[in-house]
């Protein structure tokens, strides 16, 4: 793999014009070409050159519309020829980096495919077309601008192409779903009476967006019902391969949503140079990445990554996804649909789970590790909340009730300038909180009263233990380890602790902090830890008796917070 190269999918829209007027078209009245200073081929060439100069390599270029077949024969031929030559000239690069060398590909309504059949045959163009199922609805919804039916002409055009080079897909809404038996019959009809390989067919599940109010999305139970019904009708038939494969592949792990951030890989280019995420985000400012003529590729890439991330973060990630063992394959779904529906999970969640089970896609045995990775990349705001805990140490704590209070995250809190911070064991948490104190700061520790009684034979002789360590390190001890320099250990016996309320004692820490102000590191955060004398003794007793505990708790396990003590502006600069 060439590490410095980024390989992308490029969907190119050489024209926005369309020869049909599908009643539910998401592009609505955008299906016309607006006057543009650039020729379609010139924009594609320019974009590919400019991408390549920034080490961005389209390995897959598909033509999309509008409707690409409305291009003149010459223009269509020249674009297809260019793509074919581009694939051939980059053949070794693609193979070396693990990509198939493709043939030019178009997405089309198939209505005027015959116009370009010579070019399609010359360059072995692969064709992806759309039909409405049941076919009866195709003639109702997918009509020409003059309102004429289109199905017969489309089926005639399908006859012109080798069946390995054409596939069709159908989008299912409630209006289709209610004729599910007709869908089954028409799939059989297409299989038996056309050149289409219906094992290489696929369903899409429609969502409520720009369908002029004509179509209505399936609910999640209906999606699963649809999936089950197709399996009931086609499992074990000559279309078994399709129903267990391509038909529902859009909901499997190989689709565009199976990347952490689709903005890193998928781009849609228009003839005027505008770049969007994909057909869903086309003409939407939230998915507009820039213009290839006007913007630097680095800016376009950065916008793409950041816009997709921002779109995924418009609604907080759902608890369901955070705890889902399929997060590693689903990645929470398409951000465009999530924001359209104002939901925070994939609109086909149930269908996906059903599909994963039926295809034996395993649940993630350690979902917290992928979750951490995903949050790191897509939701860093949640990262500290879902850190990876040391399981071995947690197991040891769970096996020894006496260890519980040493690690309890509900016994110490500090208040700093009006803000309260619950303290956690520094070796169990996965984050470091650093306070910036000044001599004017309020800095108080609250200690749960009951803690002084835990593991204490004589609580009156037990004490709150406060340990101060410098951020600077020194080598000491028999191990010769580099450790934080010890500044002081302070003990306050139970009888001397001030009662804050029924639940807590409190200690003003600032006098102590100021007492040692010359000892603090200015470069690295200093460390203050809290425990009781008896808990501390038990920690060392356990270390002595259990090597596994010692290994896992080799650093001080107590609840802590880090801090700087700032003196004045000049010194801190």
């Amino acid at each position, binding site marked *: 793999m060439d590490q410095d190269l980024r390989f992308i999918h490029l969907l190119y829209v050489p024209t926005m014009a369309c020869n049909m007027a599908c009643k539910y078209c998401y592009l609505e009245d955008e299906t016309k070409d607006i006057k543009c200073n650039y020729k379609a081929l010139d924009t594609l060439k320019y974009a590919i050159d400019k991408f390549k100069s920034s080490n961005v390599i389209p390995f897959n270029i598909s033509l999309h519309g509008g409707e690409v077949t409305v291009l003149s024969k010459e223009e269509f031929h020249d674009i297809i020829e260019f793509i074919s030559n581009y694939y051939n000239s980059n053949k070794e690069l693609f193979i070396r980096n693990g990509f198939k060398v493709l043939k030019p590909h178009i997405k089309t309504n198939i209505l005027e495919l015959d116009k370009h059949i010579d070019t399609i045959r010359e360059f072995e163009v692969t064709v992806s077309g759309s039909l409405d199922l049941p076919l009866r609805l195709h003639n109702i919804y997918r009509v020409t601008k003059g309102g004429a039916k289109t199905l017969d002409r489309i089926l005639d055009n399908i006859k012109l192409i080798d069946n390995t080079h054409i596939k069709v897909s159908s989008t299912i809404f409630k209006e289709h779903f209610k004729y599910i038996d007709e869908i089954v019959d028409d799939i059989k009809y297409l299989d038996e009476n056309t050149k289409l390989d219906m094992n290489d067919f696929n369903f899409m599940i429609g969502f409520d967006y720009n369908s002029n109010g004509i179509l209505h999305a399936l609910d999640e139970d209906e999606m699963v019902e649809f999936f089950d019904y197709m399996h009931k009708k086609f499992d074990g038939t000559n279309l078994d391969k399709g129903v267990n494969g391509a038909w529902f592949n859009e909901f499997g792990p190989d689709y565009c949503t199976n990347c952490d951030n689709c903005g890193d890989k998928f781009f849609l280019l228009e003839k005027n140079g505008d770049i969007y995420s994909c057909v869903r985000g086309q003409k939407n400012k939230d998915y507009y990445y820039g213009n290839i003529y006007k913007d630097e590729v680095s800016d376009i890439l*950065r916008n793409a*990554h*950041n816009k997709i991330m*921002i779109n995924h*973060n418009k609604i907080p990630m759902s608890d369901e996804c955070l705890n889902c063992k399929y997060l590693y394959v689903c990645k929470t779904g398409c951000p465009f649909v999530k924001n359209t529906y104002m939901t925070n999970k994939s609109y086909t969640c149930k269908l996906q789970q059903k599909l994963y089970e039926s295809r034996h896609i395993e649940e993630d045995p350690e979902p917290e*590790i992928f979750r951490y990775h995903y949050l*790191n*990349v897509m939701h*860093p*705001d949640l*990262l*500290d909340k879902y*850190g*990876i805990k*040391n*399981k*071995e*140490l947690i197991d040891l704590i769970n096996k020894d009730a006496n260890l519980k209070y040493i690690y309890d995250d509900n016994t110490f809190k500090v208040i700093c*300038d009006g*803000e309260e*911070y619950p303290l956690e064991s*520094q*070796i*169990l*948490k*996965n*984050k*470091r*909180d*650093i*306070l910036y104190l*000044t001599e*004017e700061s309020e800095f108080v520790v609250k200690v749960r009263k009951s803690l002084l009684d835990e593991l204490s034979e004589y609580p009156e002789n037990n004490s709150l233990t406060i*340990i101060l360590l410098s951020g600077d*390190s020194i080598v000491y*001890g028999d191990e010769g*380890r*580099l*450790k*934080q320099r*010890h500044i002081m*250990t302070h*003990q306050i016996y139970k009888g001397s602790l001030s009662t804050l309320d029924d639940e807590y004692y409190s200690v003003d820490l600032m006098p102590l902090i100021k007492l040692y102000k010359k000892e603090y590191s200015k470069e*690295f*955060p200093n*460390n203050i830890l809290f425990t009781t*004398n008896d808990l501390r*003794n038990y920690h*060392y007793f356990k*270390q002595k008796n259990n090597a596994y505990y010692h*290994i*896992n708790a*080799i*650093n*001080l396990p107590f609840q802590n917070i*880090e801090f*700087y003590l*700032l003196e004045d502006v000049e010194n*801190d*600069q």
Partner: protein
Amino acid sequence: MINKAAKTYNEIIIKKKCYDLLKYIYLTDDELNKIYDFLLKDKNNNKIIVTQNSLFYNDGKNNILSLPIVPKNGSFDKLEVSCLIFTIVPHYEPHSGGGFSSGGGSSNNNNNNNNNNN
């Protein structure tokens, strides 16, 4: 450098936090000054979130602006800076074979040769 003199303790604190960001990522003076101004603008809500790739201006609810950054090291997965606190999420490296390499601790600080039993 931040080109404004800190006049209050709060400004001193924010300034120090901004300079501490420079221990982890490369920032221009202009970026540093913008971050300083942003944090001071809404002390209760505004925060800066930094990952290994990006820096986000967050208004307490949403990331309202982002810019790509170059980290100085791989020691962190996330930094979060607000008027209140500076939080570091140390880099976590999944590994097999037991043991745990990354706690939230600042650095080695076991002190087991000090048994002070009065």
